[in-house]
Structure formats: structure tokens, C-alpha cells
């Protein structure tokens, strides 16, 4: 069964690669509707970059699953740092990549009761409104400022990944007033132990306030925000780890929606970048899930941290005009 799935995936990857490569057939001698600048360009054919993008995002999809991170957080610094695309289009594509992943995961997480709608709705209102502000700021800033801030953020994420602790079942003695009024509490079924876990949260006002910053950063950098959502939901507000991870993933489908619309409506979305990236990362994620059963994720997590460290440094140095 697994072999058949892998064969099907290999075929899908091959078909997609052939499609991109063969598209040059219609490309030559095509009349132009737009005014073309006269700048000297790379000798690579136009289809080479989308094809490389597809292959790289396919690999990123595998690594993201094995490393336990979202695709967006790897996509933006790596594609922004090492591909010829302007950071405006990279962030637009990054948001849509994170959005597509969250939309795909959301239904299953909601149906199983792992992601919690009552927890997500108040958080989403704040995060999505702030993501709009972040997206508008991000598109108004010069690329070098964005790169410096992006580099600093990625290095901060590396620090969070290295230092943040996790709490499987935080011990919440007393739910706070706001979460009591909003009835943010739940039960989820822990398949590994067969138990139903009752949970409640605390520090809701502080948690909601933190999502103002998270929303702005998600919109500004197009990163997705699982790296920030999970520690806040789990460590600050006290939701169980699995509920935090699942609700965070679902939250991205709302936060990234608002930011993605700003990028779409401001023209920062190129289908030739977006579609290969979404398909590549989704196919990679499916393969990653297959590989996950046979590998040691801890080692991969350090590879992800090293990749982020390198890509974050690259963005920072690019912004500072030290490494162009």
C-alpha cells in the first residue's frame, strides 16, 4: 500500500516536472502584452527557476514534516535568500503555501477535536486583524529593511526552537475569568493512552495580547506563525501540547487568509511561483509523513535549526548589504 502511494507520488512529481519543462514549447515567440524592461538577464531559461522551486519546495515539505515545523517558516528565508525572486513575491507565495497547508490539515484536526474552535475564534479575530496591518507594513517597507527584520526574526525563531520547553499537559489550577466567560475548555481523546483529557486555560488576556505581535509578524514576513502560536497557547495559556499544535495549525488558515488577501490585492502574487510551491510542499509533506514512521525526528529537527540559522543569517547579511 505504502509502495503504491510512493509510486503514485513519484508519478505526480514526474508529471509536474515534465509539464513545467515542456511549457517552453508555447513560450517562444509569444506576443507581449506588457512593456518589457531592457535589463540584461540570466542565461537560464524561464522555466528553470519554477522547476527548481518545485523541487526545493518538495524537499522542504519533507523536511518540514520531519522537523515538526510549518512550511512557511522554511520557505520565506530559503527561497528569499537563494532564489532570484523579490522578497515581496516570496512573502506572498510563503503566505499562500502556509495557508494551503493549514487548510489541508484543518478539517481533520477539527473533526478529531484536536483543534479547538472555541479557543481559535477569539485568537483569530485579533491575529487576523493584526496580520492585515503587518502585511501592509511589510509591503510598504524597503526590501533591505524587510530582509534585516526577517533575518533577525528567523534567528529569534532558532533561539525559541532551541530553548522553549514544552508541556504535554499543563497543570492549570484555575481558569481565568475571561476564558470562563468565553467557555474556552474542552475534552480531547488521547489515542496513545486511550484517555479523554479535560483541559482549561489561564492568562487569556495576556495570551490574546501576545497575538497582536504574532499577527503583525505573520503578515509582515509571510512566515506562518506556528513557531509563535504553539509556545503561547501551550506555555502561556496552558492548553495541552497536542491541542496547542493542532489549534495553531488551524489558526494559520484564518490568520494567513487575511494577510494573503492583502498580498493578492496589492499584486504580490505570481502564479508561476505560487502554484509550483504549493504543489511541491504538499507532495513533499505527504512523502514526509511516510518517512516519519521510519526515521528519528530529533536529528532532523537539528538539521531544520541549522537550515534556519543559515537562511536567517543570509537574510540579515543580504539586508545589511554584506552578502548580496
Amino acid at each position, binding site marked *: 500500500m505504502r509502495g503504491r502511494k510512493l509510486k503514485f507520488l513519484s508519478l505526480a512529481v514526474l508529471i509536474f516536472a515534465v*509539464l*513545467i519543462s515542456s*511549457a517552453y*514549447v*508555447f*513560450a517562444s515567440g*509569444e*506576443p*507581449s*502584452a*506588457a*512593456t*518589457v*524592461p531592457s*535589463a540584461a*538577464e540570466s542565461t537560464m531559461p*524561464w522555466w528553470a*527557476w519554477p522547476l527548481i522551486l518545485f523541487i526545493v519546495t518538495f524537499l522542504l515539505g519533507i523536511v518540514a514534516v520531519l522537523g515538526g515545523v510549518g512550511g512557511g517558516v522554511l520557505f520565506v528565508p530559503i527561497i528569499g535568500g537563494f532564489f*532570484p525572486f*523579490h522578497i*515581496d513575491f516570496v512573502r506572498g507565495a510563503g503566505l499562500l503555501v502556509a*495557508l*494551503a497547508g493549514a*487548510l*489541508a490539515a*484543518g*478539517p*481533520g484536526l*477539527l*473533526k*478529531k*477535536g484536536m483543534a*479547538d*474552535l472555541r479557543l481559535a*475564534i477569539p485568537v483569530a*479575530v485579533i491575529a*487576523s486583524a493584526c496580520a*492585515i496591518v503587518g502585511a*501592509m507594513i*511589510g*509591503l510598504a517597507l524597503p*526590501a533591505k529593511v524587510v530582509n534585516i527584520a526577517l533575518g533577525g526574526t528567523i534567528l529569534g525563531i532558532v533561539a525559541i526552537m532551541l530553548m522553549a520547553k514544552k508541556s504535554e499537559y499543563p497543570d492549570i489550577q484555575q481558569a481565568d475569568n475571561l476564558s470562563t*466567560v*468565553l467557555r474556552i475548555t*474542552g*475534552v480531547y481523546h488521547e489515542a496513545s493512552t486511550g484517555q479523554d483529557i479535560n483541559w482549561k486555560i489561564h492568562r487569556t488576556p495576556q495570551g490574546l495580547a501576545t497575538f497582536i505581535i504574532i499577527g503583525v509578524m505573520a503578515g509582515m514576513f509571510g512566515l506562518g506563525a506556528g513557531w509563535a502560536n504553539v509556545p503561547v497557547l501551550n506555555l502561556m495559556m496552558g492548553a495541552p501540547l497536542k491541542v496547542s499544535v493542532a489549534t495553531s495549525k488551524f489558526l494559520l*488558515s*484564518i490568520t494567513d*487568509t*487575511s494577510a494573503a*488577501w*492583502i498580498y493578492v*490585492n496589492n499584486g504580490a*502574487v505570481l*502564479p*508561476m*511561483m*505560487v*502554484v509550483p510551491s*504549493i504543489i511541491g510542499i504538499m507532495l513533499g509533506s505527504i512523502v514526509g509523513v511516510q518517512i516519519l514512521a521510519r526515521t528519528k525526528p530529533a536529528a532532523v529537527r537539528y538539521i531544520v535549526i541549522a537550515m534556519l540559522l543559515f537562511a536567517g543569517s543570509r537574510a540579515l547579511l543580504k539586508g545589511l548589504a554584506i552578502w548580496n
Partner: protein
Amino acid sequence: MDKKVLATEEQLAYAKLLDTGMKFGLLILVVTFIVYLTGILAPHVPVNDLPKYWKMPVHTYLTATGIHPGWAWLGMLGKGDFLNFIGIAFLAGVTIICYLRIIPILLKKKDTIYAVLAFVEVLVLALAASGVLKAGGH
């Protein structure tokens, strides 16, 4: 053994609609991209010229290609590249539809606070989608 359902009615309704919408959106995205790649519909920006444009800041790109931001793409669906925006807009719009689906359920359960929060979320996402908000150039 009975399978215990731990999700609420509105959560399940949201999940079901999201599942259908997400699959439909991805299907549109793939089909329209194949149309774009195969050249069945000529694109507004010729694919050979893309490397000149994708390195530009978005405001320069829009000026150079004569593309109007916002919902202007709706009038350019006959172009292969803009056809892809149907799938992109659908994926970016499915969450709004899901929220609209759960508001009546929340009202029926007299969960007024969450019905209001869901309505506010619809307004926030609709504002983002409206195209009214324009980012300044750089």
C-alpha cells in the same frame, strides 16, 4: 465500542465545509495552472519575460506590466496567468464561507458572544479581501 465525538456541532460543520472547499480550491488551482503552462490561454505577462519581472519590487512590477491591483484580475480571466487567481481567491475565501456557515448554528445555540466574534471575523476577512486597503510603495 462507541466512537466518542468530542467536537461541537459548529466545529464539525466548519470542518466539513472547509474540507470540501479546500479540495475544490486545490483542484481549480491545479487545472488552471495546467491551462497556463500548456499555453491554451495566452498569458498577460509572457512566460519568457517572467525572469525580468519576478526580481522587481511589486510596485515596479505592476507599473512595468500595466497590471492593476485589487480585483482587476476578474476582468483578465481570459489570460492564462490571471486564470490561476480563481483557485487562489477560492482558497483565500473558503474561511469566510466557513464562518458564515457557523454563525446561524451559534445563534441557534444562543451563543451570542461567539456569534458576534464570528461575525467580526467575517468583517475583518471581508475588509482584507475587499481590495480597499492599499499598501504604500517603496
